[in-house]
C-alpha cells in the first residue's frame, strides 16, 4: 500500500524565528567571505527608548503656561565647574562629534553655520579641526581622541571647549574606523596616514590609562589652555553609573553619555547592535552618579544616542540631562536617506546611487563606503557637491528650530518657564522595562519596578 506524504500548506512556508531569512543571509555571507559586516549609523533593533515615556501635562493640580506667548527659557550653560569661560548656548541641543573624513567639508560647514545661527555648538571628531568648521562654527568643541589624528595645541587654543573621548555609544570599547575610499589626499594629510588605506583608530589613549591618569591628562589640557576652556569627557554607555563617577573624579566639567542608539560612520554591525546599553537606561545611571556625588548642577550632563525629536530632548532634560547632542538626526535633516538631492535649486533623484549600493532611500546605512548618494558621508569630489552648504545649513537650522519649539511646547504644558525645570516627576512610563530603566512609575500606577510595590 502506497503512503502519500502529508503536506501541511502553512508550515511548509513558515519562517523560523531564530533562523529567519536575514539570519540565514548573515550566516551564508560569513561562510562565503570570512568577514564581518561593517556599516554606518546606529543600532537598528528596537530597545526601550524615550518613546516609552509620556509627560504629565498640567491640569488642575498644575498650572500650564501659554504655549505661544509666555516666556520659556532655553539658555544652557556648560562647564561651570572649573573653566574660566563656560560655554553659553541659546538652546540645549548641540551637534554631536562627527569627523571631517566621515563627513564632507561642505557638511561640516553646514553644521557650523546652522549651529551658530541657532546659538549652539558643533563638535569636531576623529581627524582634527578643519578651517571650514572653525570659521563657520561660533562655538566649537574640539575632541581629543585615542588616535590623536590631526590633534595639535594650536587647535586646542582655537577651540571653545575640549572633549576627551573615551568611547562612543555605537561602539563602547572600540576605536574609530574609516575605510580607504574615504581617505582622500586631504583626509590622509590631516591624519598623517597613507592615502587610501583602511584606517582603524586606536581604542585606548596613547598617554594615559585609567581614571587617575585621566585626571592628570585633564590637568594638562587645563594648564595648556590656562584653565579657560571647559573639559568634557565623553563615554559610551555601558557601566554608566561608575564611568560617570570616574569622569567626575577625573575633573570633567561636563560628562557626555552616548547610548547604544548612537551612530557611527563605520563599525562592525555586531558591535553596533550588541555592545552598550540604551540611552534611556544610561541617562538614569548618569544622573544617579551625579546626585550620588552631590555634583548635579555642578558638573553638566549631555546625553546623546537616538535623540530625534523635541519630545526626546524634553524627556532627556526632565530625567536630568542639561543638554543633548544629536548626530544621526542632524544627518537625516541634511538629507540622509532622502530620495533626492538638491543642486541649483532643483531636486534630482538619488535612486541610482542607492541601487548601486544595493539599498534604497529609507534603508541606507552605507556611510562606510563613502558613496553617499546624497553627498553627506563622502569625500568623493562629485558626490560631495550633492550637498550644498547653503541648503544644508538651512535644513539643519529648521530642524534645530523645530526641536526647540517642541521642547518649549512641552515645557510650557508642564508649567515650566525654563526647560531646565522639567523634572522626573513630569514623566511616567508606558512599559515595565522603561519604568525599570528610567526609574519612573508605570503610567496610571505608583509602581516603579525594583523600588516600590511588588
Amino acid at each position, binding site marked *: 500500500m502506497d503512503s502519500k506524504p502529508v503536506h501541511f500548506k502553512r508550515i511548509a512556508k513558515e519562517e523560523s524565528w531564530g533562523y529567519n531569512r536575514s539570519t540565514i543571509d548573515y550566516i551564508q555571507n560569513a561562510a562565503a567571505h570570512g568577514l564581518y559586516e561593517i556599516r554606518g549609523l546606529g543600532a537598528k533593533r528596537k530597545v526601550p527608548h524615550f518613546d516609552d515615556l509620556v509627560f504629565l501635562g498640567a491640569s488642575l493640580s498644575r498650572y500650564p503656561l501659554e504655549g505661544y506667548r509666555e516666556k520659556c527659557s532655553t539658555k544652557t550653560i556648560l562647564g561651570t565647574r572649573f573653566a574660566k569661560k563656560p560655554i553659553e548656548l541659546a538652546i540645549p541641543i548641540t551637534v554631536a562629534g562627527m569627523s571631517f573624513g566621515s563627513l564632507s567639508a561642505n557638511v561640516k560647514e553646514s553644521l557650523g553655520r546652522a549651529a551658530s545661527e541657532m546659538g549652539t555648538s558643533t563638535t569636531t571628531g576623529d581627524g582634527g579641526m578643519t578651517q571650514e568648521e572653525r570659521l563657520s562654527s561660533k562655538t566649537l568643541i574640539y575632541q581629543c581622541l585615542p588616535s590623536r589624528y590631526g590633534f595639535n595645541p594650536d587647535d586646542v587654543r582655537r577651540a571653545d571647549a575640549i572633549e576627551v573621548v573615551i568611547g562612543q555609544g555605537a561602539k563602547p570599547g572600540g576605536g574609530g574606523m574609516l575605510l*580607504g575610499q574615504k581617505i582622500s589626499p586631504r583626509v590622509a594629510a590631516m591624519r598623517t596616514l597613507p592615502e587610501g588605506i*583602511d584606517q582603524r583608530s586606536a581604542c585606548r589613549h596613547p598617554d594615559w590609562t585609567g581614571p587617575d591618569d585621566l585626571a592628570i591628562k585633564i590637568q*594638562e589640557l587645563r594648564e595648556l589652555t590656562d584653565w579657560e576652556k571647559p573639559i568634557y569627557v565623553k563615554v559610551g554607555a555601558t557601566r554608566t553609573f561608575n564611568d560617570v563617577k570616574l569622569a567626575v573624579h577625573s575633573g570633567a566639567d561636563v560628562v557626555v553619555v552616548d547610548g547604544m542608539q548612537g551612530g557611527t560612520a563605520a563599525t562592525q554591525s555586531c558591535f553596533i547592535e550588541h555592545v552598550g546599553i540604551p540611552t534611556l537606561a544610561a541617562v538614569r545611571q548618569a544622573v544617579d552618579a551625579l546626585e550620588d556625588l552631590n555634583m548635579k548642577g555642578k558638573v553638566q550632563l549631555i546625553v546623546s544616542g537616538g535623540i530625534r525629536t523635541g519630545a526626546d530632548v524634553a524627556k532627556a532634560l526632565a530625567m536630568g540631562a542639561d543638554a543633548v547632542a544629536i548626530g544621526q538626526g542632524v544627518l537625516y535633516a541634511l538629507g540622509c536617506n532622502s530620495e533626492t538631492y538638491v543642486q541649483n535649486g532643483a531636486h534630482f533623484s538619488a535612486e541610482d546611487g542607492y541601487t548601486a549600493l544595493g539599498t534604497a532611500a529609507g534603508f541606507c546605512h552605507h556611510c562606510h563606503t563613502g558613496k553617499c548618494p546624497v553627498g553627506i558621508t563622502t569625500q568623493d569630489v562629485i558626490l560631495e557637491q550633492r550637498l550644498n552648504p547653503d541648503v544644508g545649513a538651512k535644513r539643519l537650522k529648521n530642524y534645530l528650530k523645530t526641536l526647540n519649539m517642541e521642547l518649549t511646547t512641552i515645557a510650557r504644558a508642564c508649567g515650566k518657564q525654563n526647560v531646565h525645570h522639567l523634572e522626573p516627576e513630569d514623566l511616567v512610563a508606558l512599559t515595565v522595562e522603561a519604568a525599570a530603566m528610567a526609574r519612573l512609575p508605570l503610567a496610571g500606577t505608583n509602581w516603579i519596578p525594583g523600588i516600590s510595590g511588588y
Partner: protein
Amino acid sequence: MEHLTFDLAQRPLRELNQLLHTDAEAGKIGKVTVSNPDGAHNIAVGLNCPVEVEVIGHAGYYVGGMNKSASITVTGSAGTGAAENMMSGKVHIKGFASNGAGASAHGGLLVIDGDAGLRCGISLKGGDIVVGGSVGSFSAFMAQAGRMVICGDAGDALGDSLYEAVLYVKGNITSLGADAQIEPMSETDYAAVAALLQQSGPAFAAHDPHDFKRVASARTLYHWNADADQEY
C-alpha cells in the same frame, strides 16, 4: 632677554605655565630654570615659542607636553607621556622616561639619555625620538610617521601595526609586533641615524650608525579586507 629661576617649592605650577605662555611668548624671557620640581605633573606644557626651560630634578607626567618651538631639558627622570604630542622644538630627558614617551608627537626631537618605559613613541606622527638606553614593550605601536633611534634593546612587540614611521635599533629586539619587519639599511638610513645621533648630543656620538637595524612596516595590514568577496 631675562633668565629666570622658578622655584616650584615656593610658587605653584600654574604660575610657571602662565609665565611661559604669556611673558615667554611676549619675548620677555629667554630661559627659565625650574628648581624643586619634585615630580610635579604638567611642567612646561603647551609652550609656543623658542624659550629654553631647564628642570633641575625629576618631572612627573607630560613634561613638555604638546611643545612647539621650546627647548626643554629635564636633568632627572620624567613620568608618563614626556613630550606627548610635541609639534616642534626639543625635549631632552637626561634620566629615564616612563611610559608613552613622545606619544603621538608630530614633530620635534625627544632625546632620552636613559631607558624609556612601555609604548615609547606610540602613535608617533612625524616626531623623532632618540633613546640612549632601551625601550619597553609595545614601543612605536601604530607609529605613523617619524623616526626612532634606540641605542639599547627593544622589548616585546616593537612596531606593532606600524604605518610609515621607521625605527632603528642597535641592540636586541625581544619580538617584533604584527606587520613590523627588519629591513636592510640604506645609505639614507645610515645618514639619518648619524644625523639624529649627532643632534642628540655628544653622549650619542660614540654609537656607530652601521650597528643599527632598520624596522619598518610590511604594510600587510593597510587594507583589512584584502580577501573580501572571495568565495572559498
